[in-house]
């Protein structure tokens, strides 16, 4: 593993068995996560963003899905590298890593917290499990964490139940829980989607501050491009189980190279745009997951005229580096 990276995903493929056949949820995803950076993962619903996160955590439903190919390399705090795809999903190794070195913030703060236990108990559980602290110390630490996520009067709120918290507070409690063990990698799966914009801004602000403080790397999954623009250092764009473009944030927003990314950026209304311009949605629709087009999965919707035959090549289109740090999967840039 490259010493700069904390996580490397290589050619990951995840298959789902459904009643109608096998769906390739992820079809060859590769990316690196550098120490302390924020990587935004964007794409339409169903393109495989959450599946990627769940495969890193090894939390995919076992009966119906399997990692068919690829590697997920992760550097532990003690410096050991592990390929998470070969780890027993119920074993002690992955359980040591989960919640401790890789943590996850879920989308639904309401359903992700147990209504039967106090917020404090739920935060302390992870601390006691992973850090080996006693009850007293764990409680101290939990109070600190709640303080850190700006829950006022944390010492009292630690004894409250989730229903006594507001939506924003619950989301902040989730973040406190995810960060309480100082994870190197934080997977944030739509962490602000359920919240209103003011709280959203607060939460993002908070995540950034905590990231600086704890030096975690974040994978930010969302389809909210505004959030991505706010948070991400680099952005990976996914379409139908493949990454079609990775670049730093500025590049993706200013001059995206893949036709899909261009379309994605154009379909977002711009704040303060005084001209009454029409939005330009991407024509067509996401293909049926059972009949993914051969070659570049985007070619039926691609606006480029006189497409080269390579677009339909069943072996797929390779990801090429068009400028330093800017990878695109498109025949327009094939050498």
């Amino acid at each position, binding site marked *: 593993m490259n010493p700069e990276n904390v996580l490397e995903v290589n050619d990951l493929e995840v298959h789902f068995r459904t009643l109608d056949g096998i769906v390739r949820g992820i079809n060859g995803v590769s990316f690196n996560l550098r120490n302390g950076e924020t990587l935004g993962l964007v794409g339409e619903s169903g393109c495989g963003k959450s599946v990627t996160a769940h495969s890193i955590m090894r939390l995919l439903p076992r*009966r119906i899905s399997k990692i068919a190919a690829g590697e997920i390399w992760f550097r532990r705090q003690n410096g050991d590298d592990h390929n998470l795809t070969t780890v027993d999903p119920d074993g002690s190794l992955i359980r040591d890593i989960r919640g401790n070195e890789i943590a996850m913030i879920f989308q639904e703060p309401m359903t992700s917290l147990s209504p039967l236990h106090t917020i404090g108990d739920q935060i302390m559980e992870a601390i006691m499990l992973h850090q080996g602290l006693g009850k007293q110390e764990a409680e101290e630490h939990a109070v600190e964490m709640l303080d850190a996520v700006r829950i006022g009067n944390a010492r009292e709120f630690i004894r409250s139940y989730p229903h006594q918290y507001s939506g924003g507070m619950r989301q902040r409690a989730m973040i406190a829980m995810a960060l309480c063990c100082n994870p190197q990698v934080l997977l944030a799966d739509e962490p602000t989607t359920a919240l209103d914009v003011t709280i959203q801004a607060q939460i993002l602000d908070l995540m950034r501050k905590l990231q600086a403080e704890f030096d975690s790397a974040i994978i930010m999954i969302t389809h909210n491009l505004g959030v991505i623009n706010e948070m991400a250092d680099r952005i990976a764009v996914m379409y139908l189980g493949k990454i079609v473009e990775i670049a730093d944030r500025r590049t993706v927003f200013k001059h995206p*190279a893949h036709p899909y990314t261009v379309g994605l950026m*154009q379909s977002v209304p711009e704040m303060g745009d005084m001209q009454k311009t029409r939005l330009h949605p991407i024509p067509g629709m996401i293909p049926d997951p059972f009949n993914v087009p051969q070659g570049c999965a985007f070619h039926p919707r691609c*606006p480029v005229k006189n497409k080269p035959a390579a677009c339909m090549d069943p072996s797929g289109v390779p990801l090429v580096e*068009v400028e330093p740090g800017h990878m695109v999967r498109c025949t327009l840039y094939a050498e």
Partner: protein
Amino acid sequence: MIEANSMGQPDHQLDPIEKQSAALRELYREMIEERDAREVEAEISKLSEAEAQFAVSQWTMIWRRFRRNKAAIAGGVVVFLYYFVALFADFFAPYALDTRYVEQAYLPPQRVHFIDEGKLKPFVYQIESGRDPETLKKIHKTTDEKVYLDFFKKGDTYKVLGLIESDIHLFQAPGGLVSILGTDRQGRDMFSRIVLGARVSLFVGLFGVVLSLSFGTVLGIASGYYGGIVDEIIQRLIEIVRAFPAIPLWMALSAALPAGWSQIKTYFAVTLILSLIGWTWLARQLRGLVLSLRESDYVMAARLAGASDTRIIFRHLIPATLGQIIVVATLSLPAMILAETSLSFLGLGLRPPITSWGVLLQEAQNLQSLAKYPWVFSPAIVIVIVILAFSFLGDGLRDASDPYTI
């Protein structure tokens, strides 16, 4: 590098990537401007068409899911066969209910030989019965004489489904007796009696379940939907019914049946008694379901649209709980069959000359038969098989009835 074909931007000091990006943006813009509203509309309708193809109906999903459960399919086939045989019982049974072969009382099951001198020609050996001169015990001796089975031959007359007179039976043994499950104390063929008894036993269940489903559905949904005092009354009623010890209650109720009633009347009275007790389970389940469903947004939407309570119940709540109702039905059918059997076994339900499986078992109710003539217990095996089949079928339906979970 291939240029995207477009007008392109005037190239200042743009690097090729930026140029390409701007060109692509322009392509999208052109594409949108070229399309007029009608085209967009056509595309949207195409989209929903494709979606409709992709989204199969709930029933298709239930069937697909059910089909994967082999045990449930097997259960379903067995249940279907039982009811089919019961429906045309007179045809499948070689003898009528009361055809006696007094000489051949307590005859053990006969072996049917299928191959005779290299040809497929089923036969049984003729039985010679007599008594042991010393002990006077009945003895049956197999002779060498062959009795060939005839298929689709005339025998005792009966009415198909009580309507059409006929005398064709599936198989007969002209000139002898064929008894694949042996005979009882009075020399009656057990196989014929089990097949004919299935009619009563299986349809008591069906009729009883229909009755208790109607009670359960109406009371359960009313209880859940209206809540308040209605709920209170129905729930207390359920508790009272459930608090009665079942067997003494059956005894009391069937003792109350006038002895002079005809067979048919007793039969319906027994099913009525069974269903009066059996509805509480379904009512409780449906109440719970409806309690959560009536708070759901689509019920609220229906109410906002001005739908009446009746309409909401019949259009929205009953279809939504239909899966549950079907499952409860298949799972309570065996319970009904068992209840009838136990009632009749205790002598509280049906009595001879009506023949049901319970009645057959009651006749075998002593140690002597268990020791010497174990074949008179064959109705028990028949019951076990059908109850298991119902349970497999019900389990499969329950798993399939909610096709949206994996």
